[in-house]
């Protein structure tokens, strides 16, 4: 429990951490969705390719968009990009830095999906079972072209009556899965090497500019958060003052309309403050009615 709390607090310590946390959660969600998803290849000649490639590429697009939506910094960057210049210059380097950091984080979950898909192999088997060369596999070598297409399309479905005891089906499946896993591992290796090189070589180029861009992008983010918090506090104080004014104005109105009320005596300090001069049922009812029918103007000067 403590460990969980510590991890949680660490991730909330600054906004970079929060974004890394969201990125990680989205990647985990991506793996979980893939494992929960019930992949069922249609095993029909033209549908296989559409289904297989669709499952491989549409969810990553969705995950990428989700990564952009859930990242608060994307909004900050857009606002900074679209704001009028005013008294503060716009720094393109800062916006480029923010854009690239947002894109990098948003790309993690889609890449995880694609790699998991390739390493699992079902998508590629489904999409490309109709494209293998039938001559290389014994069971499909001597059949008419139309029939061979139908048969090959049924390869991903083990339980189909035609494929149940077909040894060539297993051969095709193994062949396609081997290609799929090779592709998956290659992509993973290339990406890791690319990231490694990028991180290793970055200090060799423009380190000072990078530090500046990172500082100012952090600043813009913090400034916006503080502005929102200040607005919240301000609206709270404004509301407090407005309500006090309202109570006072009601009290004044009541005083004006009732000349024969005995002079108010001093009560205990605390009670007087809290009662604010409204001391009977009719006055309270009048106050509540006025609050609904005639809210006070938004002016506490």
């Amino acid at each position: 429990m403590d460990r969980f709390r510590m991890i949680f607090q660490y991730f909330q310590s600054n906004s970079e951490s929060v974004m890394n946390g969201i990125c990680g959660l989205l990647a985990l969600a991506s793996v979980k969705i893939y494992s929960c998803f019930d992949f069922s290849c249609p095993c029909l000649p033209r549908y296989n390719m559409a289904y297989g490639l669709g499952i491989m590429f549409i969810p990553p697009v969705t995950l990428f968009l989700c990564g952009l939506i859930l990242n608060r910094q994307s909004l900050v960057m857009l606002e900074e990009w679209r704001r009028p210049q005013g008294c503060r210059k716009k720094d393109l380097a800062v916006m480029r830095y923010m854009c690239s950091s947002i894109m990098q984080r948003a790309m993690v979950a889609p890449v995880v999906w694609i790699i998991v898909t390739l390493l699992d192999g079902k998508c590629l088997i489904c999409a490309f079972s109709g494209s293998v060369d039938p001559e290389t596999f014994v069971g499909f070598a001597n059949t008419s072209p139309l029939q061979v297409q139908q048969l090959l399309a049924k390869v991903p479905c083990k339980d189909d009556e035609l494929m149940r005891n077909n040894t060539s089906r297993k051969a095709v499946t193994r062949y396609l899965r081997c290609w799929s896993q090779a592709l998956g591992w290659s992509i993973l290796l290339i990406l890791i090497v690319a990231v490694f090189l990028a991180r290793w070589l970055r200090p060799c180029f423009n380190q000072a500019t990078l530090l500046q861009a990172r500082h100012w992008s952090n600043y813009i983010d913090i400034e916006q958060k503080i502005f929102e918090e200040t607005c919240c506090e301000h609206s709270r104080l404004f509301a407090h003052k407005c309500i006090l004014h309202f109570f006072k104005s009601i009290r004044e109105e009541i005083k004006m309309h009732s000349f024969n009320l005995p002079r108010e005596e001093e009560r205990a300090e605390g009670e007087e403050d809290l009662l604010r001069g409204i001391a009977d049922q009719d006055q309270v009812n009048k106050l509540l009615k006025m609050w609904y029918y005639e809210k006070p103007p938004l002016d506490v000067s």
Partner: protein
Amino acid sequence: MDKFRMIFQFLQSNQESFMNGICGIMALASAQMYSAFDFNCPCLPRYNLVYGLGILLVPPFILFLLGFVLNNNISMLAEEWRRPRGQRGKDPAVLRYMFCSMAQRAMIAPAVWVSVTLLDGKCITCAFCTSVPVETLGNASHPGLSQGEMKRVLARIPCKEIYDGQELIANEVAIRYLRCISQALGWCFVLLMTTLAFLVRSLRPCFTQAAFLKSRYWSHYIDIERKLFDETCAEHARSFAKVCIQQFFEGMSTDLAATRCHSPRKAPADAGEATEKLLGITDQSTMNTVLKSWHRCKPPLHLHQPTLPSSNGWAGEGQPPAHPSTPRRETVAYYSRV
């Protein structure tokens, strides 16, 4: 338990977080409800379509309405919309902002239900099994089946145990076909929703940022003002009740003392807080009278100044008279039976 408490605390840290939390919980509840639901296709020609589409579309509608009901801000929106203008103008942009933000949050659980339903495939399989293209997937030339008969056979596709049309079209082939279409629709729906959400979120800073900041500030202000007003009224009610009850006790104490023809005992200055808090009620019969009077004759909702203890025993009811009347003398008349 600790984990829940921590998550709860994080979500309550501000209003937006809290609303997002409710949103997430409803989405999870929606997915959980679907997995707990026992889907039973009727496997009859016209009922399939109604059942399948009903399960696909009616629960999302209910979840959408529930999303509004569970949102505390709906009453705030309604109040702001219906209040008379009075001294404060109404800003339609603020109302629009409040409604849009509530509608967006309420849309999440229904979207999750529709996505999960489509990706699972049972609903579409049930609803559209009679429309499977038999010519391409099976043997349309299978003899001896009229249209109605064929529909009856096809309607049984989702119910594997009673399916009797294996020569017409294989059960697995049909189910795979329908499920593929359903999952494709599901992913397209998810992509569409995500794209819409992305566009809504990213186009706003490009066009209406200043108006958005204004609407957000004032909608937040209205929410805070309502809460503060409720708090102030609660404080006021507390003080009102305190003073009212205090005056009631003092009044009763003075009244009862006057009935016994002696002035109310004043606590000596150095008697201590406890004695002061007794408010002059110091014995069983007095307390019983006070309790009985509280039940039979509650004091009016009108606070007045603390009156000086006078022998006319008036204090406690209504307005004190402008001129104190002459002191009342208690006389007891004895009737002798002599």
